[in-house]
């Protein structure tokens, strides 16, 4: 395994350890919400990482449609998978946080709906890739990714418009709305830790995919060679 990767992985875990300590012990307890508020230190960074991954996937997909490069496709797949995982975490931690604090599991506000739609789009992306025949999954998935990327801002705005006409209490304030200084530190450390962690996991998944691709190529090369030997019958 590459030394750079090991270094990054160790750094990620170390950072995560530190940021967890910050989040669970150092940061003060929130006055109104109590201990459960600490989910915030995981929930928001995971959302950020998921968004980043999906953005990477869009860039890789667009690039892949121009230049059919296997490495780029591996990166697209890796970022999509990791994005879906982090998005799942967001969708689970969100309701867990909302229920005790605001009394409701879910509401169709702009942020939540957009997150859910993103999750649906990328879950269908993964299914499309898995079930496409031949080698078409990469191309079809890339096309879907373009659609998804165009759709997300429209989703966000459509719900915003909806909520101006059908207002509801907003479920959570903005990430930086009046955070006490120690909480802000804890939050930023976690943001950093999760970003590094996310990148490391994407990197790892990318490497695995590249190995898979190399194995496929090796099988193909072997099949090509053996026929050349036994084909001139």
């Amino acid at each position, binding site marked *: 395994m590459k030394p750079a990767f090991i270094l990054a992985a160790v750094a990620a875990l170390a950072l995560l350890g530190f940021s967890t300590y910050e989040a669970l012990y150092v940061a003060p307890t929130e006055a109104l919400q109590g201990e459960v508020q600490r989910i915030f230190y995981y929930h928001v960074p995971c959302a950020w990482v998921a968004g980043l991954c999906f953005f990477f996937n869009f860039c890789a997909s667009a690039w892949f*449609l121009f230049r059919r490069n296997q490495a780029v496709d591996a990166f697209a797949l890796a970022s999509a998978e990791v994005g879906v995982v982090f998005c799942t975490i967001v969708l689970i931690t969100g309701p867990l946080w909302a229920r005790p604090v605001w009394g409701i599991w879910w509401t169709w506000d702009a942020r939540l*709906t957009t997150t859910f*739609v993103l999750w*649906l*789009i990328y879950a*269908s992306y993964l*299914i*499309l890739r898995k*079930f*496409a*025949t*031949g080698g*078409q999954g990469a*191309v*079809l998935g890339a*096309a*879907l990714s*373009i*659609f*998804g990327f*165009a*759709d997300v801002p*429209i*989703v966000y*705005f*459509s*719900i915003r*418009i*909806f909520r101006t*006409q059908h207002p509801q209490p907003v479920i959570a304030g903005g990430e930086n709305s009046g955070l006490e200084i120690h909480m802000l530190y804890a939050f930023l450390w976690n943001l950093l830790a999760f970003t590094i962690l996310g990148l490391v996991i994407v990197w790892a998944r990318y490497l695995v995919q590249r190995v898979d691709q190399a194995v496929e190529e090796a099988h193909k090369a072997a099949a090509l060679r053996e026929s050349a030997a036994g084909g001139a019958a």
Partner: protein
Amino acid sequence: MSVAPGFGTVLRMTIGKDLRMEWRSKDAINSMLFFSLLVVVIFSFSFDPTAETSREIAGGLIWTSFLFAAVVALNQTWARELRSQALDAFRVSPAPPNSLFLAKALGNMIFVTILECLMAPLFTMFYNLRALGNWKLLPVIAILGTWALVVNGTFFAAMSIRTRIRETLLPLILFPISLPALLAMVNATTAVLTGDYSPIIWIKLLTVYDVVFTTICLMLFGTVINAE
């Protein structure tokens, strides 16, 4: 010697062919009609609201049933091409792929619109609907909304025929992407029915959605159809 065929000619011929074929076999129309009727009746049974409430929820119910009916149609159009494998003959010819896409999309548009024209009166009857707002906006909303569903649906149906789980994959991909359009359609319709607020912002959103996604579909269709 043959010449490159005109885009409009291919479009016209393909739509004509599809409509003629549909008229003869009545595959899609029959299943769509029956399914939609079923949906209208079931919804009417399950939700038996007062006149006040019915105007609130009718928009959602109507568009849900149109959506389900549209998915049935969308699966059918490409299934026909698959049966005859005529897609190969099309790809081998100099006809532009986008003309095929638009022809399929417009054909679907015609089918679904016919369906809507049949179902809307039924809904109006069952729910005793009366538009308190500007009813002339309803056809506009219907056209923009139906196109939003059909244009993406035709594209995704073309993609899903290349997978092993055709019919299941189409709604799976289509629904999340169509969410903002659905929201716009439902809210615009409700706005017109209840007269409580203006549907204009939703109509604008639908227009933007239609323009954006029609462009993306036309840009990417060639890639997808030749992805063998």
